[in-house]
C-alpha cells in the first residue's frame, strides 16, 4: 500500500489515472448502446485494427495516434455499413475485419523490427507508457465524446430501442449510426494504450452487461455503467500495482469478478 501511495505522488501516475478514468467513462457509455444493439464485438474488431495501425506507425516511425485514428475510424464505418446491409452479417464482417487486420499487423511487425517492446505494449496495454501528450489528447477527446453523448442521448436511446420508429419519424438514423461508429473508434484508439488492443473491448462490454443486471431504465443503466467502469478501473489499477500485474488484464479480472458477484446476487434474490 505504501508503494501505491508513493506512486500516486508522481505526476505521470496522476496523469495516467486521469486519462484512465475518462477513457473508462466513454467506453462504458458507448458500451450501453453497443451491447444493446448487439454490436459488442465492434470494439474487439476495432482493437485489432488498432493493432495493425500501431504496427504500421511503429514500422514507419510515425506518431501512433495520428496514424491509428483515421484507419480505425474508417474501419468502424465499414463495419457499421456492412452490418446494416445484411441482417446476419455483422458478426461475420467484424470477424473478417478483426482477423484480417491482426494478420496485417503481425506481417508488418515481422517484416520490420520483430515484436519489440512498443508493439507488445500495444497488444496488452501499459498505462504508465502513456506520454504526456497522449494523456492530454485522451482527456480532451473524452470530454468531446461525453458532450456529444449527452447532447444526443435521447436520439441515441430511440435508435437503440427502435430504429424503425426513428426512421418513420423522419430521423436520419444513418447519421447517428455513423456517430456511434466514430465515437467508438476514437474511444478504442485512446483506450488501446492503456488496455491493450486485445483487451480494449472489455471496457466497452463489461460495465453495460453488469449494469443491466441491476437496474431497469436505460438512463440508470448508462449512469451505473459509468460508475462501475470507473470503480473497476481504479480497483484494477490498485491490483496491478500491488501484485505487479499488467494493468489491462487486472481491470478485466476485476470486471469479471464483479459480474460473477452480481449474477450470484441476482440468483439469490430470485431474479
Amino acid at each position: 500500500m505504501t508503494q501505491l501511495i508513493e506512486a500516486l505522488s508522481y505526476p505521470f501516475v496522476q496523469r495516467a489515472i486521469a486519462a484512465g478514468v475518462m477513457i473508462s467513462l466513454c467506453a462504458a457509455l458507448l458500451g450501453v448502446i453497443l451491447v444493446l444493439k448487439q454490436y459488442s464485438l465492434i470494439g474487439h474488431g476495432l482493437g485489432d485494427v488498432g493493432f495493425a495501425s500501431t504496427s504500421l506507425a511503429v514500422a514507419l516511425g510515425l506518431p501512433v495516434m495520428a496514424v491509428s485514428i483515421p484507419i480505425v475510424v474508417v474501419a468502424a464505418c465499414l463495419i457499421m455499413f456492412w452490418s446494416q446491409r445484411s441482417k446476419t452479417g455483422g458478426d461475420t464482417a467484424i470477424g473478417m475485419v478483426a482477423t484480417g487486420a491482426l494478420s496485417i499487423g503481425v506481417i508488418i511487425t515481422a517484416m520490420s523490427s520483430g515484436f519489440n517492446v512498443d508493439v507488445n505494449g500495444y497488444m496488452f496495454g501499459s498505462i504508465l507508457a502513456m506520454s504526456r501528450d497522449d494523456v492530454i489528447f485522451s482527456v480532451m477527446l473524452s470530454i468531446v465524446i461525453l458532450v456529444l453523448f449527452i447532447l444526443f442521448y435521447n436520439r441515441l436511446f430511440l435508435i437503440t430501442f427502435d430504429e424503425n420508429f426513428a426512421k418513420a419519424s423522419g430521423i436520419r438514423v444513418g447519421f447517428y449510426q455513423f456517430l456511434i461508429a466514430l465515437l467508438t473508434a476514437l474511444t478504442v484508439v485512446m483506450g488501446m494504450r492503456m488496455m491493450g488492443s486485445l483487451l480494449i473491448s472489455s471496457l466497452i462490454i463489461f460495465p453495460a452487461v453488469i449494469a443491466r443486471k441491476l437496474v431497469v431504465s436505460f438512463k440508470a443503466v448508462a449512469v451505473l455503467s459509468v460508475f462501475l467502469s470507473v470503480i473497476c478501473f481504479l480497483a484494477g489499477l490498485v491490483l496491478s500495482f500491488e501484485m505487479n500485474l499488467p494493468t489491462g488484464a487486472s481491470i478485466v479480472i476485476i470486471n469479471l469478478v464483479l459480474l460473477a458477484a452480481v449474477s450470484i446476487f441476482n440468483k439469490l434474490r430470485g431474479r
Partner: protein
Amino acid sequence: MTILEVKDVSVIYSDDKRVAVEHASFKIEAGEYACIIGSNGSGKSTLVKGIVGLVPITSGQVIHELSPEQYAYLSQITEIERDFPATVREVVLTGMQRSARRFPFYTREDRRKAAEAMEMLGISNLADYRIGNLSGGQKQRVLLARALCREPKLLILDEPCAGLDPAITAEFYSLIDHINKEQGVTILMVSHDLDQVEQYAGHIIMMNQTVEFDGDHDAWCRRCAEEGGHYHDTVN
C-alpha cells in the same frame, strides 16, 4: 381534404426481384378511419412501410400533405428483449422526438404530453416498469401511447393486433375508434381482423399486390353480397 395520396406505387424488392406492390393508388381524407385488408403476402404491410419510408418505393409517388411530425407509425408487435433496459415512461417519451427539432432534451411540456397519453391509455401505473416484462397487449398500448403523445393528425398502424388474443384485440380496436371519433385523428390501419374492420372502418381498401377494392363501408358490404362471400374468403 386529402391528407395522403398513394399514386401508382410499385414496390419491387431489390434482392429477389419479387413484386410486392403493383400500381397501387388511393387517397386518404382527413378524419376517416381507413383499413387496408388482404390475404398474407398481398403487399399491404409493404405498402404501408413504403408510405412511412421504411421500404424504398420502386416507382410511383406517395404524396404526404402532412409533415413527418404530424403522423405517427405503430408497427406490428416486435420482439423486445425481456431484459432490455427501458421503462415505459422512457419509451413513451421517445414519441416526442421529431426530426426538425433542434433542442436536444425533453421539455416539461413533452413530459406532460407523455403523461397524458399514458393516462388516456390506462398505463400510468406501469410507467416505471421495464417494457420487456409487459404482456403483448400492454406493450402495444405503450407503443400506441408513444405514437399518440406527439398529437398526430394521422395514425398509421401495421397489424397492431397480430398475435394478440381476441378480447385484447377487440379492446384495442375500440380504443382506436375512440381516438378517431373523439380526437379526430385520421386512421390508416393494415388489418387482418375482418370482423373488426367491418365494425369500425368507414373506408376499406383491399390489396392483392394492386388495389382490388377501394370504397366506403356500404360499397364494401354490397360488393361482398354480390360476390357471395368471396371477398371474405380471400381475406380470411
